[in-house]
C-alpha cells in the first residue's frame, strides 16, 4: 500500500506548496491541540497575506500568535481572538481583518466544507450583527440564517496518534476543531505525537479516516497550558452532587 504511505520526514515537505494569499484552516482550541511545528514552519517560510481559519489565534509568542510577528496573517476567521497584545495592535492599526464567527457555526462551516455541503441554515446569530446581510428563511415558524461552508488550500491538524495511511485519533479535548479542519483542506497535513503502523489503531475508534489526510509528520510538542487552574480540595471525580 505504498501509495497510501503519507508520512513525510521534514516540515519543508509537510508544508510544501503553501503560497502567499492562501487560506489555512487550523485545528485547536486556545493552545490545546494545535499543530505547533506546522505553525512554526509557516513562520519559517515567511508566507504572507494568509487567511487563517481557527477558533482562536494563539497568544503572544506561541501558537498562531507567532504568525502575527511578521504580519503573515491578513485575515482571521475565529470565534474568539485578542488573547495577545500584538493581535490587538494589528487589528486596531487595520493591518489585520477579523471575521468573527460563532463557535458552533465555525465548526459546522468547516464540517460542511469537508462534506460537500455548500451552505446550511442555523438559528445562531439571527437578529445579531452575525446575521446581517445573510439570507433568512423560516422553518416551523422560526427564522434561520444561511451560512456558507469554509474550505482552504491547506489544513493543519494536530493528532495524538496517526498511522501511515493518515488515520488519526486525538487525545481528550485536544480533539476540538481538528477533525473538521482535517476534512476541509485541499491539502491536509497532520502533525502527530506518535506515528504508528496501519492496524495499530482500532478501525472503529479512528476519529479522522485517512482519506482526508495528505501528509503526516511526527512532531515534538511543548503543549503549553494557557490557564492552569488547580483544585486545592479533595474531590472525587464521579459527580457534581452536593459538593
Amino acid at each position, binding site marked *: 500500500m505504498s501509495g497510501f504511505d503519507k508520512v513525510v520526514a521534514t516540515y519543508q515537505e509537510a508544508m510544501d506548496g503553501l503560497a502567499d494569499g492562501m487560506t489555512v484552516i487550523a485545528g485547536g482550541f486556545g493552545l490545546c491541540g494545535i499543530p505547533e511545528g506546522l505553525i512554526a514552519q509557516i513562520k519559517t517560510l515567511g508566507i504572507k497575506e494568509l487567511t487563517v481559519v481557527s477558533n482562536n489565534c494563539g497568544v503572544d509568542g506561541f501558537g498562531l500568535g507567532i504568525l502575527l510577528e511578521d504580519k503573515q496573517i491578513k485575515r482571521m476567521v475565529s*470565534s474568539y481572538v485578542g488573547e495577545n497584545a500584538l493581535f490587538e495592535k494589528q487589528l486596531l492599526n487595520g493591518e489585520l481583518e477579523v471575521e468573527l464567527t460563532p463557535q458552533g457555526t465555525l465548526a*459546522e462551516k468547516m464540517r460542511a466544507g469537508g462534506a460537500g455541503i455548500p451552505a446550511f441554515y442555523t438559528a*445562531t446569530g439571527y437578529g445579531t450583527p452575525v446575521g446581517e446581510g445573510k439570507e433568512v428563511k423560516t422553518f416551523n415558524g422560526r427564522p434561520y440564517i444561511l451560512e456558507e461552508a469554509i474550505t482552504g488550500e491547506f489544513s493543519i491538524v494536530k493528532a495524538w496518534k496517526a498511522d501511515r495511511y493518515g488515520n488519526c485519533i486525538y487525545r481528550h479535548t485536544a480533539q*476540538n476543531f481538528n477533525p473538521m479542519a482535517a476534512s476541509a483542506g485541499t491539502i491536509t497535513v497532520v502533525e502527530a505525537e506518535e506515528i504508528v503502523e496501519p492496524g495499530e489503531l482500532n478501525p472503529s475508534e479512528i476519529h479522522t479516516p485517512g482519506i482526508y489526510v495528505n501528509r503526516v509528520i511526527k512532531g515534538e510538542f511543548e503543549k503549553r497550558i494557557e490557564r*492552569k487552574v488547580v*483544585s486545592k480540595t479533595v474531590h472525587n471525580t464521579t459527580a*457534581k452532587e452536593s459538593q
Partner: protein
Amino acid sequence: MALSRDQIAMRVAQEFKDGDYVNLGIGIPTLAASFVPEGISVMLQSENGLLGMGPYPHEDELDADMINAGKETVTAITGASIFNSAESFAMIRGGHVDFTVLGAFEVDVSGNIASWMIPGKLVKGMGGAMDLVAGAKNIIVTMTHTDKHGNPKLLRECTLPLTGVNCITRIITDLAVLEVVDGAFLLKERAPGVTVEDIQAKTGGKLVVSENVTEMRV
C-alpha cells in the same frame, strides 16, 4: 439586600432538575455547579467538546489536553464523553442541552440578550455564546440588576449589539428572579430585604409584578 455572587449562584442551582445537562458560562454561572442541591445530579457540558466536566485537577492530574471552554485545566467525571466541536455544537444547537446559564450586559422585554460586544471597546468575539442562546431549551441569565453606575440592565430594548433574539426566558439577578412574558419582565421572586419598589426603580423595561412574589431562598 442585594445578593452576593455565591447567593445568586445558589439560586441558579435551584433551577436544576435531577438528570439535567447544563452548560455554564464563565463567572457566576460556573459557581452554580458548587451549589447543586442534595439529591440532584446535573452533568456539565463544556462546548469545546466535553460532556461530564469535573472539578479542576490536582497538581498531579494537570493535562494540557484536558481543558474547558474557558481554556482552564479540568477533569472529566466517570462516565464522561469527549467529542469534536461540531458534535458539541450539534448537541447545543439541537436542543439537547437542558440549561444554559450565562451572564449578560443587557436583556430586554422581548427576550433579547446582549452579552458579547461593547462598541468602542475591543471586540474579542462571541465564542459559543450565540450558539448557546440559539440552542438550549432553557436559558438563564445571571447578572447584577444594574451596572456599576446604577443604570438598569433589564431594558425595554437592548442598546448593545445582540447575542440572540427572543431567547431569554429567565433572569436571576442580585435583586430578583424574573421571567420574560408577553413583552414584559414578570417579577417572581425578590431578594431578602429588597422591596418590589426597589426592583421597579432599577428595571428599565416594563415590569409586571406576579400575584405572589416570594422571597428568594438563598
